């Protein structure tokens, strides 16, 4: 295709794609800064999600307490499972600007897994310690829910801060 003088007059530096080292460095810094700011703007996971999952576990413990009528147990578990499904779907489809999976390194997963394991361990230890009383597992799961609600936002923020730091370190 021939280029007319009119076309040539509209050629901009962007069209020819050249850049000085100074501009390249500035561009890279701006990219890293804006990416890090975006990642830091939201926690990795919303606290309502982990709290909701913990409440589901608590509900299951409550409904499976010995002596609970079978009808109540089965109905309750069905309702709770539907609520959990709604929670998961909401998380999957309504969470905005989730960090790209490339940022989820094994170190990030290790932090999350450690936090989760701590919550589960707390629940188990309490359930065993309170085994002499009724609804021991429910109380233990409630304690786990409280722990996850209190510490979840901190962990989620810590994780996104680490992700942002990784981006910034790539300079």
């Amino acid at each position, binding site marked *: 295709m021939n280029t007319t003088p009119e076309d040539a007059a509209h050629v901009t530096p*962007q*069209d*020819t*794609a*050249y*850049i*000085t*080292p*100074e501009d*390249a*460095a500035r*561009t*890279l*810094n*701006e*990219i890293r800064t*804006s*990416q890090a700011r*975006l*990642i830091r703007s939201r926690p990795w996971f919303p606290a309502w999600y982990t709290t909701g999952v913990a409440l589901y576990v608590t509900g299951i413990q409550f409904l499976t307490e010995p002596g609970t009528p079978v009808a109540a147990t089965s109905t309750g578990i069905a309702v709770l499972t539907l609520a959990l499904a709604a929670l998961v779907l909401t998380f999957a489809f*309504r969470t*905005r*600007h*989730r*960090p*790209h*999976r490339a*940022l989820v390194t094994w170190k990030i997963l290790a932090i999350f897994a450690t936090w989760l394991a701590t919550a589960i361990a707390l629940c188990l230890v309490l359930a065993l310690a309170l085994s002499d009383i009724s609804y021991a597992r429910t109380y233990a799961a409630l304690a786990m829910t409280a722990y996850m609600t209190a510490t979840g936002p901190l962990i989620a923020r810590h994780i996104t801060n680490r992700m942002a730091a990784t*981006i910034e370190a790539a*300079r």
Partner: protein
Amino acid sequence: MTELDPLIHAPARLRIMSLLAAVEEADFAFLRDETAVSDSVMSKHATALETAGYVVIRKGHVGKRPRTWLKLSPKGRQAYKDHITALQDIVARSGMSLTPDQPHPRPQAGEVRNRQPADRHPASPRSTG
């Protein structure tokens, strides 16, 4: 050596690509606001990137409001990485540092600072199909 991609070299497009590179997907309004462009300009950029196969556009609703989400395609992510690598190469060859607390070297007296032929990286034509 990778070369600058003319399709994402424009500041607004590079900003869109870089934001999309950091997340799984982002909505149109957010990208428009972050890029500080109008709806129509953002729409043109999105369409150009989609035509090139760099971006996947998904339309849906949140409640009754229509929403548009964008995400990088694998081809777009690779193009973005290549472009970043090209920028890093330009900086590396100049001996400059990307660390903010290290001052960039100033050109010596008599040195031509901008747009030296050696600093130019004309982009190779790329398939946008």
